[in-house]
């Protein structure tokens, strides 16, 4: 019998931005068992929520994840609205879907970039993240923020979308069509990607059902579920779009589902923008309080269904707030998908369920708004970086090759 070795990935690992512990049991190069340990970053969000009022809980759950940062709020406010039987103005429903679908596109592009990176296809990584910037710019235009939009509240949304912003949003959206087509063709027709992802890390339909898999992880295995269609909420019952499913359940199909879903997201957003020019009225029913009761809210996040349960005793805080993110259901499917695969493929297989990583940092470029003049450009940042290095060299007494003096 071959000698069994454990290859630890985590809990703190250079390749993971978040702590999670994957113990790969291998015999030779083959993975024979996977043990997953959680809890290295347990934040007690459910308990914390019991100390917040119903509006504050939305801001709290927005910080569960930096990528699905509007999915948790939508599910949370829907749970409160279900508990309190609160009506939401139609205009607000369209705005919820616009923000939700923009989030899906930027999340899928983020994943696509990471997947390319894990496969050693760094061109895809660079390009995907470059076009993700355009999506974040649209989100910033609509919400004021690139991530953590603060848009949702029980009874509606906090900000309207101005008619005057809609042409700019449409232009940016239109500009995404060709890049996403490029990614589609790059994945569908690249022999390297085929070789690394087809037939790799297969999740069967039976396994997807048994593990309660969600989102693209489920749909790539032919498990035809999507909360947007099956349990219509926000504007999803009022626009035309298709649920994307594939049949093979391998890494390749998971990528295909996500890429094709981005076209559907653009379709949904365009229809919502059209409706926003027609459907007028308030964007918030401004409920005074949440009456005693209990409610369920669920929303199709980029990774699958986000589920929130809220119980109210009539006070201004929930007595219980249960949160279930899609990765809680999707990550355990790795126990099946890595079996029999090689260690080298394990990284992309584990990444194929798109486990949630927080990525909200960015570089700031200050603009002198009246003149439109850049105060900090890329050159300035390079100079600052050089200066910081020189300073560290002076402080530590270490003197390796000194970066060149920056020349304006």
């Amino acid at each position: 019998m071959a000698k069994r070795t454990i290859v630890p990935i985590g809990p703190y690992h250079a390749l993971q931005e978040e702590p999670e512990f994957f113990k790969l049991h291998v015999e030779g190069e083959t993975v024979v068992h996977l043990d997953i340990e959680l809890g290295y970053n347990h934040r007690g969000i459910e308990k914390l929520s019991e100390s917040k009022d119903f509006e504050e809980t939305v801001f709290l759950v927005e910080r569960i994840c930096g990528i699905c940062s509007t999915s948790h709020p939508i599910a949370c406010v829907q749970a409160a609205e279900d508990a309190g039987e609160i009506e939401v103005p139609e205009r607000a429903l369209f705005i919820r879907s616009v923000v939700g679908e923009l989030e899906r596109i930027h999340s899928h592009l983020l994943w696509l970039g990471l997947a390319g990176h894990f496969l050693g296809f760094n061109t895809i990584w660079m390009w995907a993240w470059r076009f993700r910037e355009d999506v974040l710019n649209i989100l910033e235009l609509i919400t004021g923020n690139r991530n953590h939009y603060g848009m949702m509240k029980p009874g509606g949304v906090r900000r309207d979308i101005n008619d005057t912003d809609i042409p700019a949003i449409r232009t940016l959206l239109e500009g995404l069509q060709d890049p996403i087509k490029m990614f589609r063709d790059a994945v569908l027709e690249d022999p390297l990607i085929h070789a690394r992802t087809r037939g790799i890390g297969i999740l069967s339909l039976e396994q997807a059902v048994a593990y309660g898999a969600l989102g693209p992880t489920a749909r790539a295995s032919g498990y035809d579920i999507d909360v947007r269609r099956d349990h219509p909420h926000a504007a999803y019952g009022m626009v035309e779009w298709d649920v994307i499913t594939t049949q093979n359940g391998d890494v390749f199909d998971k990528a295909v589902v996500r890429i094709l879903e981005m076209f559907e997201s653009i379709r949904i957003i365009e229809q919502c923008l059209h409706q926003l020019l027609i459907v007028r009225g308030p964007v918030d029913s401004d409920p005074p309080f949440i009456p005693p009761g209990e409610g369920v809210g669920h929303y199709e996040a980029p990774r699958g269904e986000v589920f929130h349960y809220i119980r109210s005793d009539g006070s201004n805080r929930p007595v219980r707030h249960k949160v279930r993110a899609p990765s809680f259901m999707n990550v355990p499917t790795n126990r099946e998908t890595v079996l029999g695969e090689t260690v080298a493929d394990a990284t992309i297989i584990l990444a194929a369920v798109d486990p949630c990583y927080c990525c909200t940092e960015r570089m700031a470029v200050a603009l002198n708004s009246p003149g439109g003049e850049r105060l900090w450009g890329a050159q300035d940042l390079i100079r600052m970086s050089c200066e910081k290095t020189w300073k560290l060299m002076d402080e530590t007494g270490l003197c390796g090759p000194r970066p060149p003096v920056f020349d304006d």
Partner: protein
Amino acid sequence: MSANRTINRICGALGDHVLKLERKSERRAYIEIAPETVFEASSVMFREIGARLQIATGIDTPAGIEVMYHWALDGDDCVVTVRTLLSRTKPELESIAKMYPAAEWIEREIWELLGVAFDGHPDMRHLLLDDSWPAGNYPMRRNHG
């Protein structure tokens, strides 16, 4: 197929096990059952009805420890919550994870946070808390005084 028809099927299959049925709305139903019938009810929901377990929620209430199983009827646009109330002195349930792997992690979580024992769980150990967490100390328990 309407949710009403499916809920009638569920109630028919569960028979006397249904202690209370509440139709909160077209899209929501709450069914209360006794703790000893949880496995059978879950088997009906998963195997006969084809419902999808979204998650289970545990809550420490003055009346006892309540455990809710939220089931999605994806074809009927309905969420059915099957709930049961356990005594605080010895909260126990039969594990449904042995039949339905989707429940494996949440049963581990409810055990360590609320102290509900899941009989027959295939791999009962800490999920979120450290292995050195003191036995018998359940952070989501409340002091109802």
